[in-house]
Every structure is written in structure tokens, then in C-alpha cells.
């Protein structure tokens, strides 16, 4: 091979095939190959390679030219997959404390051995239990509810006076107790005490099933909120719920969703839902209102007032939630109509208010909520992004589960896409690829960014029909780009993104970008003061920062400033479930936070329209994207590849 030949070219001339999904621009990192002699090659870009990769001898075949004798090893495709997958920061719930259930947990299991009654000791069952409780556990006051009382006698006798009491020592609104007897179960069963932390999102509901004795998450589950069929955003749900009788239906729909994932998680852990004795719920104010069956209409109407921001604990039976009927469901405190409990929970989960440096917290969901501040001050705001980032409201969108396209690259010469699908473990074990069923949120972001960078769409999101690609066509729903032909998909239909989908995504990202820029401006600061960007939200952990910046969803800050926290609302609900101090702290955060009503702010609309562009009307705010665009315009490597093909 002559000196100066690109490795991709050399590989081709050697009769081998090397995939270059992005078209040889060094953008995707999928053409990484091993070279045995780094001195004999020269690389133009190593952007996509980690420190370890480089140390191990990886170079990008599309960015590297030969300058001497070298042996190139093409790694098996799976290895590249794995290398890329590890790029994602996985959610690992690490608790910010060493969990001590005796110290932290208001729910306790107490083994009791009662003296059986006799003619000499005719104490009633309840007093007998209380006496044992005082003697054996030092608890003198105890309350009980009627349903528990009804089964008390039978249980005590059937269990031969050996029982375990499930006791709730206190709740946030009764910090001094008195303790409440939630249940008595036969025998001394003190191995597990179950609780559940739930995040009721507008689009997705997620749950952790937690062993309150160890603090371990035993199982998790998530599902689309069944209310979605009654409206995709909170406003449509409120409008629907405010009509006659619909509130009950909405309440039932979300309870059904919770019960469904509860059952699924319990199934995985091999327990029954009725063994769960406590549930904490984070959610935006509308979701909490609808869950509690509270009218939500005033949330929508000026001056946007909730019925309650800090609801008291209610018993599961009153809501129809399938955990133990007398167990408390504790809905976490919110700040205002559009900043619900999920935000204090997220802040708690992120530990943002412990730090002296200014951080921006983003919960990217259907309702985009954000907080700016430090240990001294916190402001929050909310904006409606719509469900596109959760894969809903998009024709071929889906949740991030098996079969979802989660990342896409588009070849800048052929406009052919390459994609990665969340694999089905069974197929993966057999070495089979998983056929796609749809595109999830992170896939949509990546797809939008690729279409934009390669010029498949213009900066306003219009598909460019001059490209001559068969994938750009007029479909039933207007112009669209085909990501996967029917022959490749699980259902045999083409998977495509339509102009309408593109507009939805651009609107969603614009709402979020406008939200945090206006928030920063209205306190008189700007994004350059932000030291950390904490990204939460149920899909936050899967966002590729680079792509999210390219479409203008996230501000163009150095990548190391971004921290992906996963579902912080769920994590906050978990902390509140485990630790009474954290539960208390949530209330403090909620009270301290200053809520900005963006609808009262004219500049929001302004900021929104300027963000309705890729990446933004003001390209100067996105220098890294400007650089990529300039590189596309005059990329010598692209030209040489084009010339050779």
C-alpha cells in the first residue's frame, strides 16, 4: 500500500469489509481497528476513542493513514458493540449513606410471642398484643385500624400466639408517632420487609421493589402510564379529567399501571404485592392529583394553584393500590403546579443543594422540569416538552426496551443508516441480531442529530429531497426518512421518522432549552456560570451528550460538566422510602425552592422560537456544532472516500 492510504481504503483493497456507519467522518467510532505499530500510522481524529482504547492500540480506520509497515486487526463486531455500550453511564443506585434500618427506617418488623389467654388472664387480644409490644420492644403506645383489628384474633390464634408485627413508628406528618400496627403475620417472619418506590411520570411509570431491611433493590419495572390514551401531556389529561366522571377513570388508569408493574416486580422477587408495606410516590403535581383523585383543573388555569403540594400519607386501600391495604402510600411534596414531587426528589437524589457551585438540574420528560442553584438558592421552572423523548407521540416511537433502536448513524455519502437495537438476551445468546420494533428516545435524539449533521434535514427540520436517497420519501403522513426497511424489522413494516415526528422532537428540545435559558436569565445569571449539568429523567441515563448538544437539547458546555443521574425522581423516592431524615429534607427543599411561572414570562416564547432550529438560531451558542458543520462542508476524507467509490 502506498504511504498516505487510509486504513479503510487499505482494508477494502485487501478484499475485506469494514463498516463505516458515519461515512468516514470519525463521528461514530465503529471502525476502530487495532494496529501493532503506532509509529507507522498518522491519525487525524481520535475523538471517539477512550484513553484505554488508545493505549490498547485502537485507531479509527477512517481517520488514519498508513505511513509504514503495520498489521491491522479488525476486531469482531461484538467487541466494538461492547466497547461502545460501556460508554453509557449505567444507573447504579448508590446510597449517600450507610443504610441502617433500625436508625433510618420508620417501618419495623417486630417478632412477638404472646402469652396465650386463659381463664386467669382474660385480657383482650389487642391489649395483650400491646402488652407484649411494650415488654418485648419497649413500645407503649400503639394504634390500629379497624381492618387490621378484624383479622387480629384469627391470626393470633392460628399462629399460636407467635406473630410478627409490622409497625410504622412515625410518618412525616406525625414525626413523634404514635406507632401504628399495620399488620400481624403468623410466625416470626423477619427476613424481609418490603417497600416500593414509584415515579409516576406523565408518560412512563417506574417502580423499585425494595427490601427495607437491607435497602437493596430486589426488582424493578416500568410501563407506559395507561392515562396516555386520554392525552399525551398534562394539559390534555387535566382537560379530560375535568369532564364528568373522567377523574375516577384517570385515577383508575394510573392505579392499574402501578399495580401492573408492582405485580411484575413482585413476580420477579417471588413475593405477593400484599407483602409490600410502604410506598413512596414521586410525580408531577398533575400526576399526584390524578392518583389521589383530586380535581386538577385549577392547575391548568391561572393562577395555577394545586389542591395540595404536600399530601398526607393515605392508606393503599383508599386508592386501590394492590400493596397491603393498610400500608401507607406517601406522595412526596411538590413545589408548585408544574414542579411536583419529582423535582425535590430529583434534587435530593442529585445532592445538588449540598454544593457551593452552581448546578443546573434537568429532568427531561414529557413535562421538562429544571432547577438552577446551589446550597444558597434554588429556582425551578417547568415547560411542556411533550412525550417525544419517551418514544411516545412519535409514529414509530417506543420505550427503551427490547427491540428499540437506541442509536443511529447515517453515512454522509450514501445517507444509509446503521443502527443499534436493544438486544433480546435470548437472541443475543444464540448470536442472533434482534430485529427492531421501533425507536426509543435516545434513538430519536441520535437519529435527529445524524440527519441534521449529514444534511438529510435542513436546520428547520425539512427533509431534503434533493439527496436522491430512496429512504427520503413522501409517506402516508407526509415526508419521512426510512430507518429500517420492513424486511429488517420485527413486524415487517418500515420504521421511519416523519416530518411531523421531527417537528415534535424539535419542539420538545426547544421547550427544554428555552426553559433553562429563560430561568437563568430571569435570576440575572447565564449558563456560563453553571459548573455542573445534572441530567435526570427516566431516560436521562441513555442520552448521548454529543448528539443532544448537536440538536440543541443540552447547552454546548464541555462534556465533563454533564452528569447523568438516571431517574432521579425514582431515586429520590427510594431515599425517602428508606430514610426519614431524607424524607424530611425533601419537604425543606420543596419549601426553599423558588418557582418561576414561565407562562408569566414573555421571554419564554421568544427563547422557544429561537430554539426551534437545529441546533439553535444563534449558532454562536453552539461552537462545537458549528465546528462539526464546517468540517462537513469541507472534509477532505469524505471527498477521497467518495472519489474512490
Amino acid at each position, binding site marked *: 500500500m502506498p504511504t498516505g492510504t487510509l486504513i479503510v481504503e487499505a482494508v477494502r483493497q485487501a478484499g475485506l469489509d469494514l463498516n463505516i456507519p458515519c461515512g468516514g467522518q470519525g463521528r461514530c467510532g465503529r471502525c476502530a481497528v487495532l494496529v501493532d505499530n503506532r509509529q507507522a500510522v498518522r491519525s487525524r481524529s481520535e475523538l471517539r476513542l477512550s484513553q484505554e482504547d488508545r493505549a490498547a492500540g485502537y485507531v479509527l480506520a477512517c481517520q488514519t493513514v498508513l505511513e509504514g509497515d503495520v498489521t491491522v486487526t479488525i476486531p469482531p463486531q461484538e467487541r466494538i458493540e461492547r466497547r461502545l455500550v460501556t460508554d453509557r453511564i449505567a444507573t447504579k443506585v448508590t446510597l449517600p449513606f450507610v443504610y441502617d434500618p433500625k436508625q433510618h427506617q420508620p417501618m419495623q418488623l417486630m417478632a412477638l410471642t404472646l402469652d396465650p389467654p386463659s381463664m386467669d388472664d382474660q385480657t383482650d387480644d389487642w391489649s395483650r398484643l400491646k402488652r407484649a409490644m411494650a415488654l418485648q420492644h419497649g413500645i407503649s403506645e400503639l394504634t390500629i385500624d379497624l381492618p387490621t383489628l378484624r383479622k387480629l384474633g384469627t391470626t393470633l390464634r392460628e399462629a399460636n400466639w407467635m406473630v410478627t408485627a409490622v409497625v410504622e413508628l412515625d410518618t412525616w406528618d406525625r414525626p413523634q408517632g404514635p406507632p401504628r400496627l399495620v399488620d400481624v403475620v403468623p410466625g416470626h417472619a423477619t427476613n424481609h420487609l418490603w417497600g416500593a418506590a414509584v415515579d409516576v411520570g406523565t408518560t412512563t411509570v417506574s417502580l423499585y421493589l425494595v427490601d427495607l431491611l437491607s435497602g437493596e433493590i430486589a426488582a424493578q419495572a416500568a410501563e407506559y402510564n395507561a392515562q396516555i390514551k386520554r392525552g399525551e401531556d398534562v394539559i390534555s389529561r387535566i382537560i379530560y379529567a375535568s369532564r364528568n366522571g373522567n377523574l375516577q377513570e384517570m385515577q383508575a388508569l394510573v392505579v392499574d399501571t402501578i399495580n401492573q408493574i408492582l405485580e411484575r416486580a413482585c413476580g420477579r422477587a417471588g413475593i405477593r404485592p400484599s407483602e409490600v408495606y410502604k410506598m413512596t410516590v414521586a410525580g408531577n403535581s398533575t400526576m399526584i392529583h390524578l392518583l389521589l383523585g383530586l380535581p386538577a383543573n385549577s392547575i391548568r388555569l391561572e393562577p395555577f394553584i394545586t389542591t395540595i403540594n404536600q399530601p398526607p400519607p393515605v392508606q393503599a386501600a383508599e386508592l386501590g393500590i394492590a400493596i397491603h391495604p393498610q400500608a401507607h402510600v406517601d406522595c412526596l411534596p411538590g413545589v408548585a403546579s408544574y414542579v411536583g414531587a419529582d423535582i425535590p426528589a430529583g434534587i435530593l437524589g442529585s445532592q445538588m443543594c449540598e454544593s457551593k457551585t452552581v448546578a443546573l438540574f434537568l429532568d427531561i420528560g414529557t413535562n421538562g422540569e429544571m432547577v438552577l442553584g446551589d446550597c444558597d438558592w434554588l429556582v425551578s421552572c417547568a415547560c411542556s416538552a411533550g412525550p417525544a423523548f419517551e418514544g411516545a407521540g412519535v409514529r414509530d416511537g417506543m420505550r427503551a426496551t427490547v427491540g428499540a433502536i437506541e442509536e443511529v448513524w447515517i453515512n454522509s455519502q450514501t445517507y444509509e443508516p446503521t443502527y443499534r437495537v436493544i438486544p433480546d438476551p435470548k437472541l443475543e445468546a444464540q448470536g442472533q441480531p434482534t430485529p427492531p420494533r421501533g425507536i426509543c428516545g435516545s434513538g430519536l435524539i441520535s437519529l435527529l442529530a445524524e440527519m441534521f449533521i449529514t444534511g438529510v434535514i*435542513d*436546520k*428547520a427540520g425539512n427533509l431534503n429531497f434533493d439527496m436522491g436517497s430512496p429512504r427520503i420519501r413522501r409517506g402516508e403522513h407526509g415526508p419521512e426518512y426510512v430507518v429500517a426497511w420492513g424486511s429488517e424489522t420485527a413486524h415487517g413494516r418500515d420504521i421511519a421518522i416523519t416530518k411531523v415526528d421531527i417537528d415534535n422532537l424539535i419542539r420538545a428540545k426547544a421547550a427544554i432549552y428555552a426553559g433553562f435559558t429563560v430561568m437563568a436569565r430571569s435570576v440575572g445569571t447565564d449558563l456560563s456560570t453553571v459548573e455542573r449539568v445534572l441530567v435526570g429523567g427516566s431516560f436521562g441515563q441513555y442520552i448521548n451528550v454529543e448528539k443532544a448538544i448537536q440538536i440543541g437539547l443540552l447547552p454546548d458546555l464541555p462534556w465533563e460538566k454533564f452528569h447523568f443521574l438516571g431517574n432521579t425522581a425514582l431515586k429520590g423516592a427510594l431515599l425517602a422510602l428508606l430514610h426519614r431524615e431524607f424524607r424530611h429534607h425533601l419537604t425543606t427543599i420543596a419549601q426553599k425552592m423558588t418557582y418561576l411561572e414561565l407562562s408569566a414570562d414573555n421571554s419564554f416564547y*421568544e427563547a422557544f*422560537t429561537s430554539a*426551534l*432550529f437545529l441546533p439553535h*438560531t444563534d*449558532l*454562536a451558542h453552539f461552537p462545537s456544532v458549528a465546528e462539526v458543520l464546517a468540517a462537513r462542508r469541507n472534509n477532505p476524507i469524505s471527498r477521497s472516500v467518495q472519489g474512490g467509490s
Partner: protein
Amino acid sequence: MPGIEVPKEKWSGKVREVTLGATAAEGGTRARTVTVGGETTLPFLKFEGEIPHPPAIAIEVRDQPPSDWPALLLQAWDGATQDVAEWAKAAEAAGADLVALRFNASEQLSAPYARQVLRRVLSATGLPLVVFGPGQADWDNEVLVAVAEEGKGERLVLGVCEEKNYRTIVAAALAHGHLVDARAPMDVNLSKQLNILIHDMGLPVERIIMDPTTGALGYGIEYGYSVMERLRIAALQGDSMTQLPMLVTPGEEAWRTKEARAAEGVPAAWGDYVKRAINWEVLTASTLIHSGADIVVLRHPESLRRVRAMINALIG
């Protein structure tokens, strides 16, 4: 006592100079060209910057006498509206800098018809032309593509070029050496976005005029006013995608209003119809010129005279 220093803004940006029309030497047939733009300060603030070219006035002419114009306006042209070539000549005689030829949305409007009308106007006047289609995207495309071909090399301004049809119009301008009138609906961001899209297609910025749209006096002029003022400030602050001269159509807006149309059946407080109607067009135009308009398209010869007088008074 220390003296007061005249407060001057140190603007870093400059509006681009755009030349309309081409003479024979430049590949066209115009008797002269008109250059607008080039400002380095807000309108007429000559104490701190350059105003190299006064705002230009275009007179709107139609291929057929329009059925929806009030009699006052048609009479002002003394029969010339019956023939587009005569009308263009009359506009030039009245002192217009530019002729804005606009096609009515009529049955006879077709590509060959548009070519023929354009030829007649080009030979009737030596002024540079702005050409507007009938105002419906698909039809505009058909008419303007024909006009662009027919007027090759004339540096016409093709309008209107909007987000929904910009590709076709820009391609025609690129192929035949014309300019475009980039119209966005009264929004700073939308204007800027359209300029970027057009520029991304390869049309040099010196061939784009932006048209931020406006409302008439009493009918939303304050929106147009502020949008233009903001665009111009952004331009002077160095935002390159707003550094384009601005064209607006106060004549069209003003003559749509009841104040300019109704001679009778209106409150006495509105005053004399003829004076009021012309004042309506004059104030709409003069206010927009104060907010940064570089080209105003007018309809009445008396408005032209008075707006010109104001411009002269301000340029000094």
C-alpha cells in the same frame, strides 16, 4: 463644570450593502442600479455612524388593475393602471427608486404570461425591479421560476421567499443571478432562521433582502416596528445573519385598512378621507423607516413624495 460627552454606541457590525438591478455593463438592461444597506448605526444617527445609502422607495404596479384597490388609489395614477408598462413608467416619473411588479392571482396568470409581462415592464422602465408572485406558494414557484429565467442577469428581487418554498425560489435566484426577498412572519427568530436556510443553500448574503413583514398603523405596526428594530440592533451588534437590508410593504398594509378605504360611514373624528388615507400610508412607512426599513413598497404617488421629503430631511 465638565462638559457632557455625546454618547455614541460602539457598534461592531454593519448592514451588508445589496445592489438591486444590473446595467448593460453588469449583464442586465437597467438604466441604473440601486444600492441599499451599509449602515453602521441605527437609522439616521449620523453622529455615530455611516448611512451610505438612503432608504429606497418602490412603487407597486400590477399586471392588471387590481379589483380590490380603493378608487382613490387607482385615480391617483390617472389611467396608467390600465397597462402595466404605462404604470411602471408613471412610477418612474413620480420619482420611485424601484418598481415592485406584483402579479394578481388571476386566471390568465401562467408562466408564459408572466414572462411576457416581465418583458414589457423591463422595456418600459430603467429602474431595478422587485417581482412578487400571486402569494400562493405553489403558484409563486411557477411564476417566479419563469420570471427568473426570463429576467436572467437583471438582479431582480424575487419575492416572496418563505420557509415553505424557499428551496425553489433560491434555486431560481442562484441559477439566474437574482436576489430574494426572504419573508418571515413578524418574528426576529423566524427571520433569522430563514436567512440561515437560504444562505445554507449557497446564496451569498449580498443577494438576500429580508422582509420581516409588518402590520399597518393601528393594525399591529408596533410588532413590525419592534421586530425590525431588534433585527437591526442584532445586526449592528455583529450577528451576521441579521446584517441584511430590510424590505417592507407599508403600502399594501395601509391600503387594506378601513381608514384608507372608507370614505363614508366612518366617525367624523377620522377627518377628511383623502388626507387621512394618505397619512395612513405615510405614517406606516415613515415609522417603519425609523425602525430600520431600507426599502418601502408604496402605492400612492403623494405618499411617495412625502416619504421622500422625510428621508431627504433626515439624510440632510
